[in-house]
């Protein structure tokens, strides 16, 4: 399985959501089939809510975990 990591820490809002939506739109089939995993690193607190909401609405699952001072959002597979 391929993994694409996008590091958006320190960037202006709403970089996170715009870039993730672009990637998800371009690679929707791969993400749905479980052949691709998108990993987003962000320090934007709002993005931990808006990104899962947005990709869930597109039928893709997302999980959020906190690391050392920032958040990792993992996007892959079908949303239940």
């Amino acid at each position, binding site marked *: 399985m391929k993994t*694409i*990591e996008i590091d*958006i820490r320190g960037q*202006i809002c709403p970089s996170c959501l*715009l870039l993730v939506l672009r990637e998800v739109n371009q690679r929707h089939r791969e993400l749905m089939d479980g052949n691709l995993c998108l990993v987003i690193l962000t*320090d934007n*607190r709002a993005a931990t*809510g808006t990104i*899962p909401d947005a990709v869930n609405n597109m039928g893709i699952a997302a999980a959020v975990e906190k690391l050392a001072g920032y958040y990792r959002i993992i996007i892959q597979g079908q949303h239940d």
Partner: protein
Amino acid sequence: MGLSVWVVMSGLTLIGVVAGFLMHRSDFCMAGAFRDLFLFRSYRLIRPIVLLVCLSALLFELCRLTGILPIYPFPWFNPPAGINLFGGMVFGLGMVMAGGCVVGVLYKMGAGSLLALVAFLGLLAGSALYAEIHNWWVPLSRLTVFPTRAVTLPQWIGGSPTVLVFVCAAIGGFFCWRWKRDGHWTNRNPAEGFIPLWFTAIGLALLSVLTVLLCGVPMGVTTSYAKGAALLESWLVPEHQATLTYFTATPLQSVLPLDGILRSGGSGPHFDVVAIVQVPLILGIICGSWLSAQLLNEFKIVWKVPFNQVAMVFTGGVIMALGSRMSPGCNIWHLWGGLPLLTMQSLLFVIGLLPGAWLGGKILQHVLLSAAPLKRLNS
């Protein structure tokens, strides 16, 4: 400096700390609220602003009816003019490009955002730029003044503020109730220590009322950004700074409710009534946000940021400062202070914010998507 000034400044600092803490925890971004309306067709951040404005309107009106409110309408609001609309448009464009409004950059800066610091520097630069065009702008702005002495909508239509304020608050309250019924107030954000947006909206409305009761004017910060620019100029180019009317005049007057003394102030590099009522809020918001980020172990400065974003947020800061000086007033001043009283200046400013935010969103989208993000591919 008298005891009353110390008390007011201490109280405002505390209000700022609580506001900064709440805004960081909820990521209460006013620029994002208007931007996302157009960019994502999202009402997520606009809903708490509606709640904040409606609750503030009710509280201010109750304070007025009970005689607690020192002055009505608040000082430093004037009859409407076309420049309020134009200033709102310019401000809306700038705040979206800057990635935050005049208090958004403060709480983001307090949490370690380098780009927010760049936007803050842009605000200082924009304030200095406005000082250069002030003498040209003032006569032009006078041409756009509406032929009325009324400051608020109720004054203009000749009725009691109570009915109109309660009707507007009831309409807003109805929408808030519907959003609650539809589950839009539910906290679904997994960020550590996240405070729901509705809670922060209520908190900020209460803090806004406390601010007026304590110092006699609503929350505002941008004239103090101009003071900061004037202070820098007084160090770097003192002869030039002394020639600028905008940095030497003291047109603003206000009475602190605690001592009843009438004080003057302006954008100059002096300790005056503007510094008393605004600087503590600025420092408090930065400190409150810093405290929140530290408690969550989320304070971290990321030094490597895309240059195109640095250029955009600085430009946005300059444009936002120009908008706030031209209007005059910022989004906090008009949305948290003027709109709840239905001042016509604030109504025009908020209408102007919409096209400005739309244009800012277009520019933002182009800049952010034109550069490749940092990406690592593993198989």
